[in-house]
C-alpha cells in the first residue's frame, strides 16, 4: 500500500472525507475523486496527470471537516483561502504531495487524440508508446515554478508566448487580447476552476444588478469580464494556472495573472498563499490623512 493511501486513510479517520485523485479518467489518467472510506481510498493515486487544483471544492464544503491532497501550488490556494477566512484552518487537513512537472493532458490529447495512453516515468514521456517532447506537454506553471526550477524551460512554446507578450507595446497587447478573447464563449470555466473565485452566484461577471457586463458573447464582453476577474484576483491569485488549464478554447489567461502577480510583488512585496496570517494587500485599508492626498 502506498504512503499516500495510508495517509488518506489516516486523515479519513478524522474527517470522513478526503479529496484526491483516482485513475478513473479516460486512458487511465487521473480524475478528481472523493474518498469516504478506507476501502475507497485504496484507489488513490498521485502522478503527473493529477492536474486539478482540488482546493476549488473547499469553499463549497466549508461547513465540514475535509482532508485534501495538495501539490505545492494547490497548497498556496488553501493558505490564501485561510488568510481570507473563507475556510476554517481547523477543518481542513492537508496531505502534501511532492509534485513532478505536471502534464498538459488536454494538449496531449488534442494532438494525439482523446484518451491516448500517457506513460510518464519521470524521465521519458510516451504517448501511445511513442516518445514525445516533454517540454511541449508540460504545464506552463510548472516551467515557471519557483518551488521547483524546471529543466525543460528553454524549449517551451508557452514561455516563448510569455516572452513575446513582455515586449509587446500597449497597442500590440490590445490586438493580441482582442484576438484571444474573440473565441471566448463565456462558459466561466476559468472562474469555476479558480479556488479564489468563490463569489459563486453573486459574481459581478454575470449579475444583472449591478450590470457590469452585457449578456452578449463577443470579444468586447469577454475582455471586460476578464478585466473584472483579473482585478478581483489582484494580490489573491496563487498562480495555480487552473483558469488557463480549464479554458476550453485555450486562452492564455495566465499571461494576465503573471503580469499582475509580478506587479503586486513589486509594489507590496507580497505573494498570495504563502502565509496564512498575512493580510492580503488589497484587502487591507490603511487610512492616512484625509484620503485626498492632502496634508
Amino acid at each position, binding site marked *: 500500500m502506498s504512503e499516500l493511501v495510508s495517509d488518506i486513510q489516516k486523515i479519513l479517520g478524522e474527517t470522513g472525507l478526503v479529496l484526491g485523485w483516482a485513475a478513473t479518467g479516460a486512458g487511465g489518467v487521473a480524475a478528481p475523486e472523493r474518498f469516504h472510506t478506507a476501502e475507497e481510498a485504496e484507489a488513490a493515486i498521485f502522478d503527473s496527470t493529477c492536474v486539478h487544483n482540488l482546493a476549488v471544492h473547499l469553499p463549497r464544503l466549508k461547513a465540514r471537516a475535509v482532508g485534501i491532497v495538495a501539490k505545492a501550488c494547490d497548497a498556496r490556494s488553501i493558505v490564501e483561502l485561510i488568510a481570507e477566512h473563507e475556510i476554517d484552518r481547523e477543518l481542513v487537513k492537508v496531505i502534501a504531495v511532492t509534485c513532478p512537472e505536471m502534464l498538459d493532458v488536454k494538449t496531449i490529447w488534442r494532438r494525439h487524440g482523446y484518451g491516448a495512453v500517457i506513460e510518464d516515468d519521470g524521465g521519458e514521456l510516451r504517448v501511445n508508446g511513442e516518445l514525445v517532447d516533454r517540454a511541449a506537454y508540460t504545464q506552463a506553471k510548472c516551467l515557471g515554478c519557483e518551488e521547483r526550477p524546471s529543466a525543460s524551460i528553454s524549449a517551451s512554446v508557452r514561455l516563448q508566448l510569455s516572452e513575446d507578450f513582455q515586449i509587446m507595446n500597449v497597442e500590440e497587447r490590445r490586438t493580441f487580447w482582442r*484576438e484571444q478573447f474573440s473565441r471566448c464563449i463565456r462558459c466561466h470555466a476559468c472562474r469555476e476552476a479558480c479556488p479564489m473565485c468563490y463569489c459563486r452566484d453573486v459574481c459581478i461577471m454575470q449579475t444583472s444588478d449591478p450590470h457590469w457586463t452585457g449578456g452578449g458573447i463577443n470579444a468586447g464582453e469577454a475582455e471586460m469580464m476578464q478585466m473584472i476577474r483579473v482585478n478581483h484576483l489582484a494580490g489573491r491569485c496563487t498562480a495555480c494556472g487552473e483558469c488557463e488549464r480549464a479554458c476550453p478554447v485555450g486562452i492564455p489567461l495566465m499571461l494576465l495573472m503573471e503580469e499582475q502577480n509580478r506587479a503586486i510583488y513589486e509594489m507590496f512585496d507580497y505573494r498570495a498563499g504563502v502565509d496564512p496570517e498575512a493580510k492580503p494587500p488589497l484587502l487591507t485599508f490603511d487610512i492616512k490623512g484625509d484620503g485626498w492626498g492632502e496634508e
Partner: protein
Amino acid sequence: MKFISSDAIPELLEALSASSVVWAPRELTGSGGTVMFERWRTGDPIDLEHFSSLSAKDVVLPRTEKLFGYTYAFGGGLGGAFGNGAPAGEQLVIEPAEPAPPAVLFGARACDAKALDVLDALFNNPEGEAYNDPQYQSRRKSLTVITLACTTCDEACFCSSFGNGTSEKAGSDIIVYPVEGGLLAEAVSSRGEALLAEPIFEESEQAPPPLAETARIEGLERLEEKLPRLFDDMDFWQEISERCTSCGFCTYGCPTCYCFNIHDEMRSDREGERQRSWDACMFALYTQETSGHNPRPTLAHRYRNRINHKFSYYPENQGKILCTGCGRCIRGCPAGLDIRDVLRAALEEAPREP
C-alpha cells in the same frame, strides 16, 4: 461518387463564399491546438484531421444574435428608471433583425449534422403547429451541410449509441470521405446533388473508405422512462456530479444544447437591441428568481436537469435524444467528468425507495 482533390478544396470554398458564409474547422493560432468552426476567408487553412473543441451549432444558433433593434424616436426628455420608458407622444420603433445570409458548413462530422436534425424537431416545426423560431429557421433552410465522414475516432466518441453512428446521414446534404489526394463526395439531399453537379467535382469509381466504429452504450432510449424514477434520488445526483465545478463548457461545447438567454444591450439611452445568447443550465443564475428563490439551488439539481433534459424530457416531447455522442463534453470537461459514466450509472441504478 464524386471526387475533389485536396488542392481544389480552397477553390471550392472560395466559390461557395461568393454567395454564402462558409464555416470550416480551423486550428486557432496561440490557442494550444484549439480547433473551432470559424468563418472561412480566402487563405484560411482548414483542419480536417482533429476534432473541433466546440460543435458547429453556431451556424444555426449563434453565440449571440440580434433579435431586433429598438429606438425611442422624437422628443427630448427621458422617462423611466433607465431613461427608456418613452415619454408621452414619443414613438417606440422596433425593427426586426436582417435575415442571415445563406451558409455552408464544411467539415462537420456526422454527430454535428445529426444534431441539426435533432434540433429541427424543436425549432423547425411546420407552420401553425407550434411556436417556431424564425431566426433558426431562416438559417437552417439556407444551410448546406457538407459532412466529413469519420475514418478515425477517439475514446470520447460514442455516436454508435445513437443509431447509425459514423454512417449517420441525417442533417447532411453531402458526405465527404477522406481518400488519398482528396475527398470522395456523396450527395444525400437534392441540395447536395445540385452542388455536386458543379464541374469542380469529378466523377469517381472509387469506393469510400471504411468508417470508424465508435464505442456504444446500449439502451440509452430506456433512460426516458428510467430517469424520472431516479429524479428524487438526490444521493445519486449528488454523487455523480461531485467532480463538477459548475462551469458551462459541457453545454456550450455541445452540438445539441440550445438553451438561451434574452438580454437588452443599449447603444444609448434611446436605442439599442435585444439579443439572444447561449445560456447554460449549469449556471446557478439560470433559474434564479428575483426573490432569491432558486428551484435548482445546487449543482446536483442543475446536473440532474441537464441529464434529464437530454435523455428524458426532450425524447418525451420531441421523440429524439438530445445527444449525438460527439464526446465534446467529455474531451473538454476541466474536471474530468464523463457523461457516459453518468449514463451507465443511471441505467444500472435501481430507484431507491423514497
